């Protein structure tokens, strides 16, 4: 089984006796309300998805991540995991103090032990992480709305916030045991935020040819307008796995996390997360975690050269298409036929058909999957 990132799978959930003690004091502590994206970060720190992080980043780690794409101890890490607060809150809280972190409905989720309190340069943050300061970039827009101070420190977690998809929610400890029970020594992770078409199935099965198991890991959480709803993605994949995959070779579980659309940096982040889940390999396609035209199409593959110590092996896929002559999904290395015979896997085109209530042709999408998607009255986020 592959080691967790940093060598140890983090668990920040308190044991029951400690948990009860903290719950007794929790209402007496100052309180911060976190939005759902930050709650996801707390939960991912708690369960070891973000190993080796044990809390929100201090300034030394943030600076090192921004500058070097590594934590202060040199371990690869590319995405800041930070907690922002306004000036008034920063003035009120002291280093060494404990503060309760609550969800928007007031539920206590964790206690933060404040170790650091600091300001940061948003422009530098945007340029380093997203490669742009364009406010049309969703990650930059989110950053610009963040408050001006950051708090760093370790978390003691008391509760997980339930989701409607908890039936698919596994912690890294659970996936690692699952892979062991399945007898999988090598596991390839597939990150997705879309329903599956034949191109996705092609890359997954190609990767599965060289590994023991496939871990389909859809991202659940805040996404863009026009993205598929989470329940639609899960139902579509359930249908695909049921009809077209061997039960012993493919499993699915969700990753509850905000998509940052940071392209190359986020590709590394996704690889680290799947390593923590127990994957030995990860599929990285064209423009992984990208949005619009902010990143060169294969920058998210090229960045892996800078991390020979990442531990998880990336499997790079370039372009693929359905060839009407070959009558199969092919890529530029396997198909000798003219481009006029190629049918591109256009997410936009597939979406247009589905919006009109049309079943996409079978060379683009499995009919069972299309029927499931069309069974939803409104499959897309407004």
């Amino acid at each position, binding site marked *: 089984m592959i*080691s967790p990132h940093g*060598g140890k799978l983090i668990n920040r959930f308190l044991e029951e006796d400690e948990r009860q003690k903290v719950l007794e004091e929790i209402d007496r502590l100052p309180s911060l309300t976190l939005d759902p994206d930050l709650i996801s970060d707390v939960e991912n720190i708690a369960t070891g998805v973000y190993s080796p992080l044990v809390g929100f980043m201090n300034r030394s780690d943030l600076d090192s991540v921004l500058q070097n794409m590594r934590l202060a101890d040199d371990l690869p890490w590319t995405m800041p995991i930070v907690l922002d607060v306004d000036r008034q809150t920063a003035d009120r809280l002291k280093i060494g103090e404990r503060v309760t972190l609550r969800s928007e409905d007031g539920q206590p989720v964790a206690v933060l032990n404040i170790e650091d309190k600091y300001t940061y340069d948003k422009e530098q943050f945007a340029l380093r992480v997203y490669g742009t300061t364009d406010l049309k970039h969703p990650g930059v827009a989110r950053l610009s709305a963040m408050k001006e101070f950051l708090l760093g420190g370790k978390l003691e977690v008391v509760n997980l916030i339930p989701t409607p998809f908890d039936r698919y929610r596994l912690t890294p400890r659970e996936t690692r045991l699952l892979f062991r029970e399945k007898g999988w020594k090598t596991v390839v992770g597939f990150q997705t935020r879309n329903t599956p078409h034949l191109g996705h199935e092609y890359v997954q099965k190609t990767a599965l040819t060289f590994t023991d198991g496939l871990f389909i890991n859809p991202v659940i959480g805040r996404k863009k307008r026009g993205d598929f709803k989470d329940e639609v993605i899960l139902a579509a994949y359930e249908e695909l796995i049921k009809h077209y995959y061997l039960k012993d070779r493919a499993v699915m579980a969700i990753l509850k996390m905000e998509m940052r659309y940071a392209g190359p940096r986020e590709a590394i982040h996704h690889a680290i997360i799947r390593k923590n889940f127990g994957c030995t390999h990860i599929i990285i396609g064209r423009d992984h975690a990208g949005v619009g035209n902010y990143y060169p199409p294969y920058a998210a593959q090229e960045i892996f050269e800078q991390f020979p*110590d990442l531990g998880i092996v990336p499997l790079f896929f370039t372009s693929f298409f359905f060839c009407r002559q070959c009558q199969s999904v092919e890529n530029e290395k396997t198909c000798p036929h003219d481009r006029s015979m190629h049918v591109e896997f256009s997410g936009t085109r597939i979406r247009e058909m589905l919006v009109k209530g049309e079943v996409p042709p079978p060379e683009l999408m499995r009919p069972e999957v299309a029927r499931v998607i069309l069974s939803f009255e409104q499959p897309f986020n407004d």
Partner: protein
Amino acid sequence: MEKEFTSVSIPTSLYKKIEEKIKGTDISSVSSYVAKVLRESLAREQDNKEVFTPEEEEKIKERLKALGYID
């Protein structure tokens, strides 16, 4: 504040060998090459010492069975 880089001594012969090796490659310096190789080596040496207690293993298996992941 801690310095970002520090010095390590290696035999001159080894330095020259590396210098020759990286000529014409994307690697900009002997230091970059050495850092890359050492990071790779350290990552390979990492053992997975993960162990499940019998109670934890039983609890996880029950959940996985209940969710249909294992029989």
